């Protein structure tokens, strides 16, 4: 059993431990502060093989031949370890283990340590083995034939959140002439350890900017007059080979989504925008599709509109150029299906600026969110950090560009993202989910989701906290408050003017009345909807698919750990031998005493009693 310091948790050490048979478990103590040289257990080439570049399409860009996006990636998360690995975040727990070691396990005077020795047990038995193909086959056999099925693994599953600027009929189909601009970000992240995925730079920065841009756009006065619609999409599961975006493309192709691929006019994506170097924001495009003249024209217009929108803001937009492929992004899945003009905005040109991509160290400190000391939680919620201001500028630029792209003709100076909102969102999604603003915008029956430390792993039970919160924040920022009662709000089909097809109604808790514990709930009308994000491979039952993501998570029963002392074998055997000896001796003695009772005990004097 090894207690490993966080700074030694790297590929070289881990592969050495994997190679020996003497290691039965590992506890990693998180390194505080984060390792300065960076740490990323993700791949050097994230989501390789599931993007658009392959040997048939841009082979010079496939498998990161041209640009290594995550040079610090060690690929640890994708190695198979056959012993449990636990993370100790609490320094007190680490101290207890170290103390136990110091007291009992340290070798003294050159010889080995003596019994009793300090031991540790880590329980994390996983029911699934080998691969997704094996475990899904076993689970489906169980589900089909067994009365009490023992499912061993579940596919990673959640919901994408999407909303349109102008309402569309969600159960019908949009006409082919109506053009839509898709804005996309991912909302999930990952780390080596289960359910720990702060994802500050890799996910939160981008979707918070996206939410701020959506809010800014909705404030424009002539939104309903715009020529093109805008769809704000938040993809879940992108870390695991594009689960959400591949499913949306699949649904669009199979006509299960209100929009079709023909409707898409252009695509704007934001990926990791918080660590801008000298306020530069890079625009990445796909060089292969731009070889087509019509696509090139559209992309050029897109890039020019973006550049023009940055005038006056503290954001410098620069093009990454023809020599660069697209970074790993949801746009790549759309490109696989159709050559859509699109751009991906990031803060890095070649390698990621994020040195802790998909790791447990991708925390608010990584995006330089700093709060002054001594603030109460409410004050911290309202405090506007520099990071928030920087992200708000990016959101303003994106919102103005989208307005122009959608055909808006007016002056865009009124379209401004609010740094206060950005700051509150950053606080809620990264530091404390259970704050007064989040409490006021969610439905009363899900207020239990606000308890935990914020993290953004996609998980298998859906929707996760992040999806719910993004849905409700988007509804709050882009929806309108309508004057309906609770019954009308929960049953909109009964109200004639509700236009249930176009809108979603939500009855939210509302904020606390001053000096009381009662809340003032109200009804919010918005166009925010959820769409299922399950990889098409599971719909098609192609569990070995190389076309779609096939990630699954194993089931388990208990996860716990304990430390205790272990006694020497000699002491145990001595106890057993002494016990057996006492047993045999007492049986013999009792037998003989009983047999000779008449010798031992004289007949007592009173005549009524019977002798032994």
């Amino acid at each position, binding site marked *: 059993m090894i207690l490993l310091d966080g700074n030694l948790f790297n590929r070289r050490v881990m592969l050495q431990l994997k190679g020996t048979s003497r290691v039965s478990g590992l506890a990693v103590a998180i390194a505080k502060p984060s390792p300065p040289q960076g740490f990323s257990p993700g791949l050097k080439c994230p989501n390789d093989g599931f993007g658009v570049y392959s040997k048939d399409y841009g082979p010079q860009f496939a498998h990161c031949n041209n640009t290594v996006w995550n040079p610090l990636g060690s690929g640890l998360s994708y190695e198979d370890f056959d012993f449990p690995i636990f993370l100790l975040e609490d320094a007190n727990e680490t101290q207890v283990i170290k103390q*136990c070691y110091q007291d009992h396990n340290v070798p003294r005077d050159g010889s080995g340590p003596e019994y*009793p020795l*300090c*031991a540790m*047990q880590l329980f994390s038995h996983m029911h699934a083995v080998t691969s997704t193909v094996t475990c899904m086959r076993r689970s489906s056999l169980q589900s089909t034939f067994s009365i009490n099925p023992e499912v061993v693994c579940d596919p990673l599953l959640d919901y994408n959140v999407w909303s349109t600027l102008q309402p569309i009929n969600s159960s019908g189909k949009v006409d082919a002439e109506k053009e839509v601009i898709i804005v996309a970000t991912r909302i999930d992240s990952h780390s080596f350890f289960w359910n720990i995925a702060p994802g500050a730079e890799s996910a939160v920065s981008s979707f918070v900017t996206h939410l701020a841009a959506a809010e800014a756009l909705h404030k424009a006065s002539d939104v309903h007059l715009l020529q093109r619609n805008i769809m704000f999409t938040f993809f879940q599961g992108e870390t695991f080979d594009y689960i959400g975006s591949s499913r949306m493309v699949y649904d669009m192709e199979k006509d299960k989504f209100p929009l079709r691929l023909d409707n898409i006019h252009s695509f704007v994506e934001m990926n990791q925008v918080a660590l801008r170097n000298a306020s530069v924001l890079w625009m990445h495009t796909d060089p292969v599709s731009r070889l087509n003249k019509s696509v090139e024209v559209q992309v050029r217009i897109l890039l020019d509109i973006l550049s023009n929108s940055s005038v006056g803001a503290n954001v410098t937009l620069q093009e990454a150029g023809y020599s660069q492929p697209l970074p790993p992004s949801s746009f790549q899945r759309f490109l696989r299906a159709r050559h859509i003009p699109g751009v991906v905005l990031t803060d890095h040109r070649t390698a990621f600026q994020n040195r802790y991509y998909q790791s447990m160290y991708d925390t608010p400190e990584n995006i330089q969110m700093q709060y002054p000391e001594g603030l109460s939680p409410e004050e911290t919620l309202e405090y506007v950090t520099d990071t928030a201001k920087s992200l708000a500028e990016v959101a303003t630029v994106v919102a103005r560009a989208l307005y122009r792209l959608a055909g808006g003709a007016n002056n865009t100076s009124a379209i401004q993202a609010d740094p206060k909102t950005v700051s509150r969102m950053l606080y809620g999604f990264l530091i404390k989910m259970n704050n007064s603003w989040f409490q006021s915008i969610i439905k009363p029956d899900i207020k239990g989701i606000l308890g935990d430390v914020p993290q953004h792993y996609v998980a298998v039970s859906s929707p996760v906290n992040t999806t719910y919160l993004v849905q409700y924040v988007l509804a709050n920022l882009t929806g309108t408050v309508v004057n309906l009662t609770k019954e009308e709000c929960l049953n909109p089909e009964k109200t004639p003017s509700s236009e249930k097809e176009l809108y979603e109604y939500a009855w939210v808790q509302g904020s606390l009345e001053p000096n009381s514990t009662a809340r003032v709930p109200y009804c919010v009308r918005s166009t925010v909807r959820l769409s299922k994000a399950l990889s098409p491979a599971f719909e098609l039952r192609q569990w070995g698919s190389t076309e779609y993501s096939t990630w699954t998570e194993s089931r388990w029963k208990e996860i716990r750990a304990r*430390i*205790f*002392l*272990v*006694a020497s074998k000699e*002491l*145990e*055997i*001595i*106890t*057993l*031998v*002494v*016990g*057996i000896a*006492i*047993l045999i001796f*007492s*049986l013999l*003695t*009792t*037998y*003989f005493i*009983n*047999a*000779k*009772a*008449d*010798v*031992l*005990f*004289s*007949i*007592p004097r009173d005549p*009524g*009693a*019977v*002798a*032994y």
Partner: protein
Amino acid sequence: MTLAVFFGCTFIAFGPALGLFVFTIARDPLRIIILIAGAFFWLVSLLLSSLIWFIAVKASDPRDEPLQKGLLIFGVMFSVLLQEAFRFLYYKLLRKAIEGLVALSEDGCSPISIQQMAYVAGVGFGLMSGAFSMINLLADTLGPGTVGIHGDSQLYFLTSAFMTMVLIFLHTFWGILFFHGCEHRRWWEITAVVVMHLAVSGSTFCNPLYVGSLVPSYLLMATAAAWAYLLSGGSAQNLWRFLLCLRSGPSPQPGS
């Protein structure tokens, strides 16, 4: 600590009691009934005393260490007195039972004497007391670890097993002494039993200084054994003859 320690401690704690049960009690159904009833009486006395202690603990401040220790001592002493009170009650019950047995018998004699009842009642008390002391520990011995990570002694399981064994013996002998004292109206015998019980229970507060609790308990057990032997009709002479017989390799004549 694993199966070895589990079986070892079980045999140490309950081996002698098992011997007593198999060879002297198991054959006679009446004795078994008295054994079980005796165990039940001890159980009821423990229930009542634990109720008092529980109420006292809940009503007091849990953070006050000396108070909690004081309450524990009070609880133990109160439990000892209650156990002895229930032993007296059981004596009264068995006296009544003898009258019933005499009435039911064919030859006007009870099939079992009060001395035999005293012995069996003592074993019953002892077995139940031992079970309550030891079963939790035995369950814990099945795990992979041993006591000691917070600095306690490693020998905890062993000493608890030995303590349980001595307590079972002590209850057996106290039963004989107590009933004899009640039968012949010798109050000083009853007082002696109560004082011995208080002493043994009090000595356990010396733990983890195990020599302070085990040694006095074994000494008291030897004293009580000798006294009970004398009261049951034994004598030094008989003992000498028994040992001589044994040494010359007898063929054991069938006893009772």
